[in-house]
């Protein structure tokens, strides 16, 4: 089966100048945990996730969480988030993005996601424009 047969046909994407506030709004409403960042032709420039934003608010959050009981100061968290809100996603996105062609085999997409521990894999068409998304649950559709 090809990727285009299992992907979520969803063109949810944001632009580099989209603010963090807007990004948070969209992920909160849509239920997606990350979004592709595209240029004016829907070609993928990066990807940004909830984790990227949390990491920016609390840079050592993940590391601290590994070793010690951790209770962030809510005031500090709110202040940092407020500072971040009007910044463009460009400042926090991951620019090196793994994508897959819609004509690729689904097993290839699965191996990419597994090997790189990806939750979301953007799919591009022959012109390199966003065509859809593969989530982990989309791979499990194969088992139906």
């Amino acid at each position: 089966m090809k990727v285009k047969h299992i992907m979520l046909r969803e063109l949810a994407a944001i632009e580099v100048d989209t603010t963090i506030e807007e990004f948070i709004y969209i992920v909160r409403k849509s239920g997606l945990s990350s979004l592709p960042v595209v240029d004016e032709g829907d070609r993928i420039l990066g990807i940004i996730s909830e984790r990227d934003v949390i990491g920016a608010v609390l840079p050592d959050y993940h590391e601290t969480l590994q070793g010690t009981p951790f209770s962030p100061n809510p005031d500090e968290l709110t202040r940092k988030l407020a500072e971040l809100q009007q910044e463009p996603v460009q400042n926090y996105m991951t620019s090196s993005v793994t994508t897959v062609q819609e004509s690729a085999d689904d097993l290839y997409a699965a191996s990419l996601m597994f090997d790189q521990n990806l939750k979301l894999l953007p799919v591009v068409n022959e012109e390199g424009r966003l065509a859809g998304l593969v989530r982990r649950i989309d791979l499990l559709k194969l088992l139906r």
Partner: protein
Amino acid sequence: MIVTITPNPAIDQFYWVDEILSPETALLTRANHTLSSAGGKGINVSMQLNYLGMETTTMGFIAGYMGHAVEHSLHERNITTNFVWTDGETRANVIVIADGKEVSPIEVNATGPQVSDMALHRFQKRYQNALLRCDYVMCGGSLAPGLDIDFYKRLLEKAHQKDAKTMLYASGDEFNHACELGPWMSKPDVRERSEVLGKPIGTKDQAYEVGQELLKTGSEIVIMAHSLTQPLADQMVFTKEGIWNYKANEIETVNRVGAGDTFTAGMLFKLLKGSDVTTASRFGMAASLASTEAKQTTVANRNAIEQALQRVEEEAL
């Protein structure tokens, strides 16, 4: 590629009942069959085109639980979505169809969510990107609260700047304002207000007159529905080359909601496959007839459309 725009999508909830009981008789009416589906003109056109094997991307504003239901309904059909989220709740439209009264269902449409400035700004960006990858833009249905009456006009302007062909299927002032730009295809929705460009269109003669007015705006194809109280409204098709009326016969109405949308989709499908206007219109009318005789608003079975063609009557005017 075709982009369809439904500014105010819905979940259409259909209830078929044996009869509509008065409160004096019973306080509860039970449905004998129910059906829920994503709806709205652009969405219905996308769903019908998808059944016919033509890919589209559908856009608009969604919100809340019903917004997720709209997206899910479309994704299940492998239709590409490019919606923008806003606050509130996508509307649910309720249609109650009583046995023997299928021609006159009770239809209650909700208003829809308020589109915020941020959502409108996002939509404009997503639309601008979509224009770089499409050849046709179809705008259809009512506007969600928060959108001004020139919303469609601006979408058509931008599409024309990118040389995309446009279709306008709407009502009221949003139609009147946008049709001035001469969309490639225009079809006023006259279910609520029987007037277009300030002129009444209740009768066949009035529809004939207004259709010709609309041709003067530069539209290549104008479609006017009339005789709306029939089991299936006639469709009058205008081009510079001729005017034709399409009528369906021997109709067994099951669900007439969306019949105009399947007409538009069927016609569009044939036109994009290279058919002439009359062949496309006959196919559109057959799709409309087949959808009227099924519970779903769109027709999954292509054979049903082909068979319905035999009951479509064409008259050159």
